[in-house]
Structure formats: C-alpha cells, structure tokens
C-alpha cells in the first residue's frame, strides 16, 4: 500500500519549514532571530537538495523586500521572523499589501516592547490585525495553536494568498514555535493558479506587467483603496474560521487564540469539574475576526473573558463583537510568563462573579 502519511516529531518552526517545501515554496528569504531561527537553519539544510531558493538576507528590511520582488515575479515565497524583526518588515508589508502580492509571512511572537524577551507573547496582536505598517490594508491572519497547525497553515496560507492576491500572516508564538509535537504531513495536491500579472518578461502577446503601490492621482489612489476594501469584504465573508469547545450549553465564555487557547481549553475543563458551565471560542483567523459568532454567543452567555499573553488587545475586538450585550473582561500575563490553567480558572471565576 502506498504510504500517504508522514508522521514526525518536530518543533513548530521546523514543521512549518518542512511544510513550505512540501507546499512547493519557490523561495524563502530570512534573517536569524530567536525564537524562530530554526526555520532558516532547516531550509538552509533541506531546500537546496529539494529545489527552491533559500537566502539569508542582511536584515529583515532586505528579506521582506526580496519577498516583494520574488512574489512580484510570480513565485510562491515566504519569510518568517519574530517581533523586533517583524517590526522591521512593516514598511515592506504595507507595500506588498498595496501591490497585492501573494506571500506568506510568519511572526513567532516574543515578548516586547523593544528588544523585550525571547519568551512567548501575544503582544503583537494589534500589529498583526490592525495594520502594523502605514495605510489602509489588512493581512489575512492565521493563529495556529499546535505544531500540526503551524504546518497545516503553511499550505492554507499559500492558497489564501494566491486566491486573494493578499499577504497572509501566520501569527504564532515562541512556545508553539519551539515546542516539539507529533505532526502529520498528508500527501496533498498542490493548488497553483496562474499569475498573469507577474513580471516575468513582457512578451508580444501582452501588455507590460507593472508591480507598484504608487498611485499619485487621488482618483486613482482611491480606486485602488476601494478595490482593496472590496477584497477585504470578500475575505470577511468567506474566510472566518474559529473553533468552539463546550459552547452548546455554556453560560460563561472564554475567548482565546493560539497558545492561550490551549491553556483555556484546560481551564474550561477545570471549571466544568467545579460545575461551572464554561465554554471556549478560539478564533483561528484573527483577521477576519469571528465578530458575528461572538455576537450570537453574547445572547447565550452571561459574560466573556479573553485570555491573552498581553495587556489586553483582542479583548477590544470581542467588545466590538458583543457590542455591550454582556460584560467582557480580560486576563493576561506578560513578559513571557505562561499562566497555568488553575491560575486562569481562578481569575475567570473572580471575573464572572464580579460582573454577575
């Protein structure tokens, strides 16, 4: 029988590097930064023998612009970094979004601000979903909560990027990037779509291809803005993804993504053991955000609390979704500290008792 599954024990960073090769990535441009340097190391080792370009750039500023060039030339291309390095890429990301270049970006979030710490954090939520660079644009943001998802979202990320001609960001963190778990690589059929807009050399049968984000006339600029807005509406309509755990009869709801969602899953179990009807909603896409579903759940539960490894960022989107229907709270730890499910459960109880 033909083997269709390939099961390995890997770090999240290695898993996404392997996934990118299997997803047919033509090129990776990167710069070392903890806690995601394994990506460049893995690809430097594996990619030359299996086809594809891997290049260590002189900075994140350069690597994101190499991504711009390669994506503009029609290649399936990606880069990864961690918070301070990802901040350096923001200029390029704004240009990539404006020029509508499909590519995959990964931020393995560490603690900040500034040089911060190399420990896991979710402090880059705002940067990921509210912009980061200048101008009106959005990335499609995927939030994996396991090594398996770090691999799976590479495939998904490339497909969504091509489908919408939009950069896709996988927002992970230092814990999921570094920890080892079982990961299954399924044999997949690669979806590739033609890119007639790419700069591959002007042949007589077509007009020249121009990749640009410069539209100096206000009317032309606004037309591009409207085109982008329309695309983002499409994305919001089609691509909202989330997971629900024990929400059917939930009276109190935790909302958490990525690593926090793993802790929250256990927190919900602990609460249930105490007879508290708790549930969890885990946004898988942070943009588009599951506003509608949370608004609906607000008709059912008494209150919601986010668990985030930050000072309270996603909680603003939950409040927007709930629109005042029920109280919304936040519990978070910062600095790279990961709270135990017991600690979260205790604070969850404290919160919903304070508002009921």
């Amino acid at each position, binding site marked *: 029988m033909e083997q269709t599954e390939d099961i390995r024990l890997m770090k999240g960073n290695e898993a996404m590097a392997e996934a990118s090769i299997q997803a047919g990535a033509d090129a990776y441009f990167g710069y070392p930064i903890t806690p995601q340097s394994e990506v460049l190391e893995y690809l430097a080792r594996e990619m030359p023998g299996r086809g594809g370009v891997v290049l260590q750039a002189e900075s994140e*500023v350069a690597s994101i612009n190499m991504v711009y*060039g390669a994506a503009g*030339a029609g*290649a399936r291309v990606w880069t990864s970094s961690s918070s301070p390095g990802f901040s350096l890429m923001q200029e*390029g990301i704004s240009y990539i979004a404006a020029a509508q270049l499909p590519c995959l970006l990964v931020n393995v979030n560490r603690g900040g601000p500034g040089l911060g710490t190399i420990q896991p954090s979710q402090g880059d939520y705002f940067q990921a979903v509210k912009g980061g660079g200048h101008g009106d644009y959005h990335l499609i943001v995927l939030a994996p909560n396991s090594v398996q998802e770090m691999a799976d979202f590479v495939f998904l990320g490339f497909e969504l990027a091509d489908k919408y001609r939009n950069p896709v960001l996988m927002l992970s963190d230092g814990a999921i990037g570094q920890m080892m778990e079982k990961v299954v690589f399924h044999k997949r059929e690669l979806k590739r779509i033609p890119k007639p807009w790419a700069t591959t*050399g002007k042949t007589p049968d077509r007009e020249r291809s*121009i990749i*640009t984000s*410069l539209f100096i006339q206000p009317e032309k600029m606004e037309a591009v803005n409207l085109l982008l807005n329309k695309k983002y509406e499409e994305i919001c309509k089609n691509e909202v993804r989330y997971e629900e755990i024990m929400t059917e009869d939930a009276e109190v709801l935790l909302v958490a993504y990525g690593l926090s969602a793993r802790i929250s899953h256990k927190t919900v179990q602990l609460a249930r053991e105490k007879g508290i009807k708790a549930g969890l909603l885990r946004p898988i896409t942070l943009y588009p955000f599951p506003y509608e579903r949370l608004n609906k759940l607000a008709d059912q539960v008494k209150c919601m609390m986010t668990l985030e490894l930050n000072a309270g960022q996603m909680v603003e989107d939950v409040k927007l979704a709930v629109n005042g229907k029920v109280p919304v709270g936040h519990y978070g730890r910062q600095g790279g500290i990961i709270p135990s499910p017991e600690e979260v459960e205790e604070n969850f109880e404290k919160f919903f008792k304070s508002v009921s």
Partner: protein
Amino acid sequence: MENNEIQTPDCLVENGETYDMVYERPHTLTGTRMHYCPGCGHSTAHKILAEVIEELGIQGDVVGIAPVGCSVFAYDYLNFDMQEAAHGRATAVATGVKRVLPDKYVFTYQGDGDLAAIGTAETIHCVNRGENIMIIFINNGVYGMTSGQMAPTSLAGMKTTTSPYGRDTKTMGHPIKVSELIAPLPGAFYVTRQAVHNAPAVRKTKKAITNGFKYQKLNKGISFIEIISNCPSNWKMTPLQTVEFLDNEMAKYYPLGDIKVPSAEDLK
C-alpha cells in the same frame, strides 16, 4: 484631460517635400511624455537604456526595478516589465526577482538618495553577494524629487535646501564615492562611472549599459554603472551651466571612466 502620448509621424512633410523616417523612438519606450525638467539627465539615461534593450532584442527577458526619487515613474516610460520598490530597497527587490527568475535580465535604476543613503546596506550586500544584475546609479548630488535637499553625494560646499550655507563636511559628512567603495568587493564584476551631458558621454554610457546586460549572462556578479547626471532645477542653473558644472566640478570629484573592468580571463 491632457493627452500625454507623444505622436510619432510615419514621415515628415516640409515645404511640400516628403522625407522618410530615418530614426524613431525605440519601441521599448512607451511614448508617454516624461515629467523630467528640461536639461535633466534622467530622460537621456532612460532613452539609452531603452535603446540598448531594443538593440539587444531582450525586451521579453527584462525585469527592471524603479526606485523612489525623481525616476519613481520610470515604469511609465519604459515598455517592459517593471517593479516599483520602496525607497532604498531596489537591490533587495532585484535580488528576489533574479533568484526566482535567474534567466532574466534584471536591473535596478536608482538615484543617489535611494542607493547611497537609505539603501546603503541593501546596495553593499547585494554587490557583496555578487547578484547577477545591473545597478544603474544616477548621481546628481541632490535629492531631486523632494526638491533639492542635500544628498550623500552632494559636493563639499554645495548649497542645497538643507545645507543652505553649503555642505560643511565637518558636520554633514563627506560626499560618498559609492563606485570606489563597492569596486573592491569580489561580487562587483564591472564598475564604471559615466555621464550623459554630451554626445561622447552618451555613447560611452550606452556602451557601459550594453556591457551590463551582456555580462549578466556570465553569472559573475554585479555590473555597477554610475551616471553623473545634470539637475538644472536643483543646481539652480541653466541646462548649459550644468554641463559646465558637471565637467568642472562634479567630474573633478567623481572622475569619469572605468573603475573595475573584467579581464579577458573573466570574460570567458
């Protein structure tokens, strides 16, 4: 709406006589009227570039990278595939293109602010990696598009809007000679400094750009072509005065000619 297209007649009719066309604009120019000031070197440099691409017959195999600066609209005038890069990042963008399309001819077209100030790191590392691309470096010693601020290449004592009393090298640094800086790097295959202010200079620049494209096929590294260019608007001179200033002042500090040429052995 203003018609921005230049019309090319099939023949010239004058005083009842019909003359055949013996020369016309290369088809690698789009025909869009250029926005450059009278006497500016950019339009001449564009035309040389377009002519070389047409003469080499490589229009279908060229990908150009435009910078931020006066030549930010270069892709409006050049009739082949192009990408517009962020300020200073053209050589990184070109690296991305060339690495995934190694059989194409890739070049960047950058000004001095773009290449020698904000893009210095990208420039040096692109050369150091010996990417098989051509960098065309337009040096007019001033920020043109933002209307005349001091550039890293502004001459000592040169008056600009941000050095209104003249460039004081004690506090504002010295004009940087990029060609001499990068020439010693092993990744630099061909480095030359030319100009476009008179007919012999134009011929030499054309030869240099032709070399730059031809050398890409050897896969031996960067061709770096610096072009000293006139900027009447921001030098506050008539076009004719800029020609004199270029010969007497610019070329004194930035001597024209080859800086690094491949040996016969290199060209094999």
